[in-house]
């Protein structure tokens, strides 16, 4: 494996990931040290564990980064990196956050918000043309959100935002 001819670029993903994780770890370690200095540290107090965990985090992130840097190009990662789509997951995240905000901060209510979110998410995840599946998606979306709403509010006594629908 080690002597395969390098084909293409070195896997960049793990290096970026390692860098981000290391930076996050350093930030958390700094906070843990700050707290320990400010409030004092004892072996049976609450400031020791954060120091241990964040130091371990930083050490491991460093080790991971070194491994990622040494990794040969065109190892198992290179191929799958080419097949990773970043657009669909990102768009799904936007849809999710939008859905949560609409649920909490508007009067739209659970059923319409869920139905719309469902149709959008199903569209993002589908590779077939819109007109072939849109009717199916809308029917499932309305059915699912209505059933969930009624089951939770009527049978389980868990409140969901009623919103604009008279149900």
């Amino acid at each position, binding site marked *: 494996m080690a002597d395969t001819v390098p084909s293409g670029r070195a896997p960049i993903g793990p290096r970026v990931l390692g860098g981000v*994780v290391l930076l996050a770890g350093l930030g958390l370690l700094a906070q843990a040290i700050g707290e320990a200095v400010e409030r004092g540290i004892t*072996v049976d107090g609450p400031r020791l*564990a954060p120091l241990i965990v964040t130091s371990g985090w930083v050490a491991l992130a460093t080790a991971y980064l070194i491994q990622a840097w040494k990794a040969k190009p065109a190892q198992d990662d290179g191929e799958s990196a080419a097949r*990773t789509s970043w657009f669909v997951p990102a768009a799904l995240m936007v849809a*999710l956050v939008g859905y949560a905000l609409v649920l909490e901060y508007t009067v739209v209510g659970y059923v319409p918000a869920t139905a719309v979110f469902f149709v959008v998410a199903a569209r993002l995840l589908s590779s077939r043309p819109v007109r072939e599946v849109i009717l199916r998606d809308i029917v499932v979306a309305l059915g699912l959100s209505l059933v969930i709403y009624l089951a939770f509010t009527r049978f*389980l*006594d868990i409140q969901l935002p009623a919103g604009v629908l008279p149900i």
Partner: protein
Amino acid sequence: MSFLPNLFDGFGAVLTPENLLFAAIGVTIGTLVGVLPGIGPALTIALLLPLTFNMNDPVGALIMFAGIYAGAMYGGSTTSILLNTPGESASVATSIEGYQMARRGRARAALATAAIGSFVAGTISTVLLSLLAVPMAKFAVMFRAADYFALAVLALVAVTALVGRSMVRGLMSLSLGLFFGLVGIDSLTGQARFTFGSVNLLDGVNMVVVIVGLFAIGETLYIASRLRDLPATVAPLEPARGFAWLTRSDWSRSWRPWLRGTALGFPFGALPSGGAELPTFLSYTYEKKRSRNREEFGSGAIEGVAGPEAANNASFSGVLVPLLTLGIPTSATAAVMLAAFQIFNVQPGPDLFEEGSPLVWALIASLYVGNVLLLLLNLPLIRVWVKVLQVPRPVLYASILVFATLGVYAVSGSIFQVLLAYGIGVIGFFMRRYDFPIAPVILGLILGPMMEEQFRRALGLANGDFTVFVSRPLTTVLLSLAVLAVLVPYAPRVVARIRGGQATKIALAEDD
């Protein structure tokens, strides 16, 4: 046999029409959700927690969870066999031969040997659990703070070191879990840690939020990133031939692997050794080495389904031993079960067998009942589960996102927690993408605070004297085992280096 009266009382509590109904609902819903590709038992239970929120009777709720668990487990094996997409690492071994059998038109036999094997393994290991629970709880009474600390260390180290392909990535996952465990108010002094000035974080990071984030959101984002290479073909179910699910030769080739799988699964589950992944692969390797039909392995050998599936089920009853008697979860699923107990203010540990005795025995009795119901419901209903598998992928994953949001929203009633779950989902996506194991995060979150509390209590009682961790034989043994668990994966290489020979790498899954 002093446990028998207790167990009979347990059956008395379970075998009421109402509780049997809860068990049946649990098994059915558990299978229904567990069949969905990508959803394993841990996520199934986490998503279904809200169902029991307003139940007054903890017995009914726990019975339902036992049913959900059994169903989710069986549903997972169905998915592995028919679709080759195991929902969790413990089902991977089953999928290797199971999917090949299904492709060769032997899906029914594969499903039947999985179901009957699960029943056999589940029943035998529940008997073992009934036998072991009380002596173990009596033994556990002697555990002091230092021992609990050592036990938590051992469980964390073993799960991280023995499972997965990279120690560094496993330990990084563990660090993330331990960090999540630190967030919130310190249980001993009431001081806030890592709350970043937000009142929403004072209560800490909820386990359900982490599980839903990592397993449901993270998994869906990962699927979304590689839509193009999804295996979308469900292996067809051959037409039924009456009630003859297994031929005579299937039976004679299955029963020994069932028993051997049980013998491997239960002890590996009962010891803190990383749950079901190790015994299922050991069982697979063993059956492959021993089988008279070795040439069939790789193209659908029934032994390769029967053994791992039995090991998988037996290991769960094993995991219940430390969970119920010591309060120590050693697998992600056990951690969710612990969360379910805590919703009803049931704290597993030695005291549970004193104070909550009827409850615990009802739970154990419900494991027997769940096993029987599973067998009665599932084999006849197999056509229904196959239909569930044929749900189009976009509909399936959009529904998972809806249910994930609903689960967190219903548990917490707070939009902050929902957004937190989404954020953790993004982390889960990257973990999945770059091959970091998930289980250490869950166990770090649960066992980390436990470990810290016991560490500080032990030191506090000993006036800061560190020899408290080496002065008791039990503590010393547990800590030495933890050190051993770290070294074992490196051992073959070290030995080879000492001998000066060729280094041989031993990896669990490399045997194929």
